[in-house]
């Protein structure tokens, strides 16, 4: 994935964040979305290590102020700090309108695998299991294929699940896809790509409407 397509993906994903929402961005790609939010958007960014109202990446870092991904962030007018139990009370209690999470695999039916590759990589789930199960809306942001070129969007996850059937939308460097009752639907496509190229890189059936496809 080129830095250009990465930036385009992040910029597109940032548009998922709507005014009035409380939003949690997962570790990795998702926290990078923070830099792409419009400065005047009324939104509360939540970080599971105990911040509501996360501000932009700090120009003058405070050693005690990081987001869940370890980035030095800043406060804004109206920021609040709290402990980890209170933070996950927000998550489990349904106060998070949207979470955007990374993925090892995501299925066409909204299953997410993101926390363990048995025998290879076992970092632990962190807060992802609870975010994926309890946020009001779950989006995934991921490269469309892995480093070996294999699809990360699959018919059925081969890895242990983080949550089952909770993902509504998938942002990749190639496409925006929605999980619908009919199946996975291509809703936007990266500029310059063909539907065939996206289908080729996708491990499950991809529904495409009749009308013209928006690009990003």
């Amino acid at each position: 994935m080129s830095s250009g397509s990465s930036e385009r993906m992040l910029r597109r994903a940032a548009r998922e964040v709507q005014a009035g929402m409380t939003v949690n961005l997962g570790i990795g790609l998702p926290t990078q979305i923070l830099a792409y939010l419009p400065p005047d958007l009324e939104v509360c960014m939540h970080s599971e290590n105990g911040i509501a109202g996360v501000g932009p990446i700090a120009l003058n870092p405070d050693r005690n102020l990081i987001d869940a991904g370890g980035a030095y962030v800043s406060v804004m007018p109206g920021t609040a700090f709290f402990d980890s139990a209170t933070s996950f009370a927000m998550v489990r209690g349904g106060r998070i309108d949207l979470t955007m999470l990374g993925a090892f695999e995501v299925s066409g039916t909204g299953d997410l695998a993101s926390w363990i590759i048995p025998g290879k990589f076992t970092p632990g789930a962190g807060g992802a299991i609870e975010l994926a199960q309890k946020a009001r809306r779950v989006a995934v942001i991921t490269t469309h294929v892995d480093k070996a070129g294999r699809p990360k969007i699959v018919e059925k996850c081969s890895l242990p699940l983080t949550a089952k059937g909770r993902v509504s939308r998938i942002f990749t460097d190639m496409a925006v896809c929605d999980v619908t009752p009919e199946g996975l639907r291509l809703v936007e496509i990266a500029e310059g790509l063909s539907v065939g190229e996206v289908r080729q890189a996708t491990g499950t059936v991809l529904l495409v409407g009749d009308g013209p496809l928006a690009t990003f």
Partner: protein
Amino acid sequence: MPLPDKTCGMEDAVSRIFDGATVMIGGFGVPGTPFCLIRELVRQGTKNLTIVKNDANKPGMGVDWLLASGQVRKLVVSHIGLNANAVRMMNAREVEVEFVPQGLLAERIRAAGAGLLGVVSDIMIDTPAGAGRTQVEVAGKRGYLEPALTADFALIHAERADTFGNLCFAASARNFNPLMCMAARHTIAEAETIVPQGAIDPHAVHAPGPFVHDVVAMPELLEAYGVIRL
């Protein structure tokens, strides 16, 4: 990225409360009791309410206004000993009263706020007071399943609020307020002072804004708030 503004008129905020709703009300005695919100709820005459509060205040104050106006179907409280009206109405079966030990009341409210189904506690174990509860064993110890106490609304009294709903409470006026903020599906907070975002130190917030839906200015500091009886 400014945070959303949640300020709301008192009448509009309280009009969300519907007949038959379960309403948590903050406060332990006078401190932390949202008398202005309660008065508006009396004015609007919303009926058939289940009120969850530590106590029933004293006669002629707060929850007693709702009892007197016949708006309360049920009280869930830890004690009502300071309100003879409430005791009389309970004995006359004019209001149903469910007693919950004070710490369990707090914990069951918090459990709802934390998105838990309940907690397991050994309070009242092996006493008749524990009757009717489901017993479970955890790590070799017996306890009761204590279900989370949810509510449709919470009425909160804060000393200060910013427009996003970050709240600060004064002294012993904190009590059940932050827990009820968490637990209700919709939380209405009155504040003695509403300040702009940024006026409250992020370290000093007692109830973070994501738990609060409406921030309401108080038209006046009713006499009830200021009672000093020596």
